[in-house]
């Protein structure tokens, strides 16, 4: 990360001190503006997926990839996860990742759920 040093940017005049004390998360404003722009582009892209009526696996993969990219950018830059210590990052990020795995397994099983529902509700008709 070219930007990583922004966090502990030493004060220019640092005479004798080794490290200027910098409070909290301080980063140049440019990175926020860039990520903001990027989020706009990604949102427009996901809106266009619907606008052009893309269907099937193309629609699905685009929606999910754009969603995860946006979520990742917000958490990493806006919420400063990129610059936190790993002890905090793992506590916060690992549980939702496990949830997503669970959700993915659920989605894969969905056709089976639908099938059994269909069988159950159609029983009277057949």
């Amino acid at each position, binding site marked *: 990360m070219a930007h990583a040093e922004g966090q502990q940017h030493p004060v220019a005049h640092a005479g004798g001190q080794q490290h200027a004390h910098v409070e909290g998360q301080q980063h140049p404003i440019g990175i*926020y503006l860039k990520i*903001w722009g990027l989020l706009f582009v990604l949102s427009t892209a996901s809106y266009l997926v619907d606008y052009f009526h893309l269907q099937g696996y193309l629609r699905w993969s685009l929606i999910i990839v754009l969603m995860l990219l946006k979520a990742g950018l*917000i958490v990493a830059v806006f919420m400063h996860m990129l610059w936190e210590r790993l002890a905090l990052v793992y506590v916060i990020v690992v549980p939702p990742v496990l949830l997503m795995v669970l*959700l993915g397994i659920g989605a894969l099983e969905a056709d089976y759920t639908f099938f059994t529902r269909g069988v159950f509700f159609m029983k009277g008709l057949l």
Partner: protein
Amino acid sequence: MTQAIRTNAVEPLPLPEGVAGIVSDWSSDQRAFKNVPWGKAMMWIFLLSDTFIFSSFLISYMTVRMSATEPWPNPSEVFALTLFGKSVPLLLIAIMTFVLISSSGTMAMAVKFGYEKNKKMTFILLLITAALGATFVGMQAFEWTKLILEEGVRPWGNPMGAAQFGSVFFMITGFHGTHVSIGVIFLIIVAIKVLRGDLDNERPGFLTGRKGKYEIVEIMGLYWHFVDLVWVFIFALFYLW
């Protein structure tokens, strides 16, 4: 009997990076989250629990959506707006998305100016964030009104298809809208604190003896970005599916 020798640790203890850092932080027999104010760590823990609440909503939505035997109403058509005599799909939702993302951008900059102790800019940016949040809630109220009065959607049924559409929609967007509304209120509170100089003078907050510090702007920001984050998932999974 030998006496224990006291040593003064002049140098702060080293903080290793990477996986070694996780091990040393968690086994340090002190607080595990180094370099992070306790309020910020607690906000993260709260947001994690909130993630699980919204996840259970989205999982239940996934379950009913995938197993509903009646056809699901097409969100692209349900949420279309007629503009200049032409029906544009999902227009209102797209605008709401951009409004919320913009509010996230101004919030991130408010945090930056807060740590720089730039009172005026922080106050202005916090107010813009609150205004964008209120705009979002207003548009949501418009959307709900249109859906209830014109389309006849109810939590127990709707004329377009699967009855679960209404219940899931009102629960998920209602819960998210509540989060946004609470966020707007707290944004205004924090903005007033900034303007009044509470954070410069370390004036204790309402109902707490803790001194005011600029980290509360960042903690507020975490909550606000989380609200935006949840919307990203709702937008993708509910409206675009």
